[in-house]
């Protein structure tokens, strides 16, 4: 081992690195990504969340309660619902976090010094956030019941316990198991890794091996080459997905509430969309290393800010907008909807539409980026 030799190698490697601008910027952008994602996006704190309220009693007192809840920083102005179905629908279709039902006899019971019931419906698919929000509401409601008690009771200090009973119901994950929400969306994470990385090195790999020129001399079109490259890995992806779903059921008892066929169809679309994304990077990159780094740049946020770890409504606007550009967000949403909530086609139509759009636009973009590279 000679220092001179090591330094010779170091010098050469540094020079190579400096030539690879793409790789270098892909590396240096990492700290920015980490700072933004972990500083802003990864939080289960509930902030300004959307919620619905179904106020059956419609009294001054119930409205006062709603105003009190709205003043929590965790919640924004509520949407009004006029049936229990509408509340459930909000949790299911709009993937809302919470719904509050104030029963028709709320005012009466409170006035009569009886326990006034209030129902909170929470979206258990967003376990951690739902629990936090339930706590906030609990505290606010307790404070409310204290201030709103009849004055005589308060002056005589006869009553020490709050007279409001809060009934919490967690939908989709009644046991509040963290892993239910996590595992059911994990295929999005796993298939992103598989599909993105394989696709990212596919074209650039052919180019580095010298086989691309030969390939282009054949009657195959660019789109045919790209599609043909994707299909076997989509097959492998399905095997991995099958293992994941079977394992989730066997070891953790997670069943698919909705349609398996629908889930597989969306998985198919997702894999094609992600591979088209990866192939676009592959067409764009100067070398395999660069393609891999570009892939990481997408893969990392795909895991962190697509609603798998943390509900999407906790993100600040910019992060939320960015996460809409990631196919994994739509797939994760569809997985939650189908596996936990038993959603049907109408509820995941948007996801299907976006994933198909991703696939076609990135395949088109990859072809367009490859063309001028030949000349």
């Amino acid at each position, binding site marked *: 081992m000679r220092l001179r030799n090591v330094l010779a190698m170091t010098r050469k490697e540094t020079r190579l690195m400096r030539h690879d601008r793409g790789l270098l910027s892909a590396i240096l952008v990492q700290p920015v990504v980490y700072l933004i994602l972990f500083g802003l996006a990864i939080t289960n704190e509930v902030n300004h969340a959307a919620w619905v309220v179904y106020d059956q009693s419609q009294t001054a007192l119930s409205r006062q309660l709603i105003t009190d809840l709205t003043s929590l920083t965790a919640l924004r102005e509520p949407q009004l619902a006029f049936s229990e179905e509408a509340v459930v629908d909000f949790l299911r279709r709009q993937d809302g976090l919470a719904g509050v039902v104030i029963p028709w006899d709320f005012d009466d019971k409170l006035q009569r010094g009886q326990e006034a019931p209030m129902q909170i419906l929470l979206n258990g698919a967003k376990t951690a956030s739902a629990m936090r929000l339930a706590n906030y509401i609990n505290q606010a409601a307790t404070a409310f019941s204290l201030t709103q008690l009849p004055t005589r009771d308060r002056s005589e200090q006869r009553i020490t316990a709050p007279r409001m009973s809060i009934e919490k119901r967690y939908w989709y994950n009644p046991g509040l198991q963290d892993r239910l929400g996590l595992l059911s969306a994990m295929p999005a994470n796993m298939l992103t890794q598989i599909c993105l990385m394989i696709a990212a090195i596919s074209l650039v790999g052919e180019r580095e*091996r*010298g086989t691309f020129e*030969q*390939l*282009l*001399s*054949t*009657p195959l079109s660019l789109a045919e080459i790209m599609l043909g490259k994707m299909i076997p890995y989509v097959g492998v992806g399905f095997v991995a997905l099958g293992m994941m779903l079977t394992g989730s059921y066997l070891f953790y008892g997670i069943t698919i509430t909705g349609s398996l066929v629908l889930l597989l169809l969306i998985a198919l679309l997702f894999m094609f969309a992600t591979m088209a994304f990866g192939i676009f990077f592959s067409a764009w990159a100067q070398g395999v290393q660069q393609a891999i780094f570009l892939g990481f740049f997408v893969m990392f946020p795909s895991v962190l800010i697509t609603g798998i770890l943390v509900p999407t409504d906790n993100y600040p606007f910019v992060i939320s907008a960015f996460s809409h550009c990631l196919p994994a967000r739509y797939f994760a949403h569809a997985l939650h909807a189908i596996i936990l909530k038993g959603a049907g086609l109408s509820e995941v139509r948007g996801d299907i539409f976006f994933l198909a759009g991703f696939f076609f636009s990135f395949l088109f973009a990859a072809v367009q980026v490859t063309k001028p590279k*030949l*000349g």
Partner: protein
Amino acid sequence: MAAPIIALVNLRKYFGSVLALDGLDLIIDQPCIFGIVGPDGAGKTTLLRILVGLLDFTATTATVLGYDIAAQPQAIKERLGYVPQTFGLYPDLSVQHNLEFFADVHGLPRAVFRQRSAELLAIAQLEKFTTFLTSSLSGGMKQKLALTCALLHQPQVLILDEPNNGVDVIARGEMWTILRQLRGVTIVMSTGYLDEAERCDAVAYLYRGRIRVQGTPPQVKAGFPWKAYRVLGDLSPALITSLHRASWAHRVRVVGETVTVETPLSRPALQAAFHDLHPDGLSLEPVMPTLEMVFTELTEQAERELRG
């Protein structure tokens, strides 16, 4: 009259601001082995890549087999075989699987593929190696396999970019045997070896993006403006130095023990001139100009034109 097999008129290609092909003209109107010769950077590979449809270009006319290269690349690719300079087959696939891939790509029916590949593998003497991993083949075998893959779909035009670069003499010989067996196929090959150019039916000398001369090797040599003589006898270094200085010696080539002089003088005049230089013991033997002499001459002419 049928369209020429290859017709290029005023072909230009820029890479950024660098002009790689400078208004090149080339017509090939009957099947032959056509050699493109020229120094590195002359534009050989660029020219071949354009024929295969891999690069953008501008031209007044650019057709292969009557199809427009820019507008109908697909039609050309179906009828053309290409062996690029760098080995383009999949090293991790077996010989058989590489063959199958290229047959599939050209939509060859199974039966046709089996027959065709058996024939070609026999000619290339690769039939024992079909199960071998392609990466395990020697350089010469790889090259023959690449050629086999390019011939599976019976192309009418075969483009070979320096097919024998870095391949040993025996493998080169085998390659030529295969090429000679192809009837009715137009082979356009670039080569850096002038002995290979001699074996072509026709050659073109490419220099700085333009074809400087074109024809059969004898035709090309006939255009040589000087006479060439080999000098026989006792050649001292001093004599060679004075030969270099002589005004009538256009060029003196020293290759090993052999000294060749290119000169405008007739044989008697040259003999007399030699007598002045070295009174005794030297004789002259007229030799046919070689392609190397012609191309060196053309290169110098082109350089003079560029400077002037």
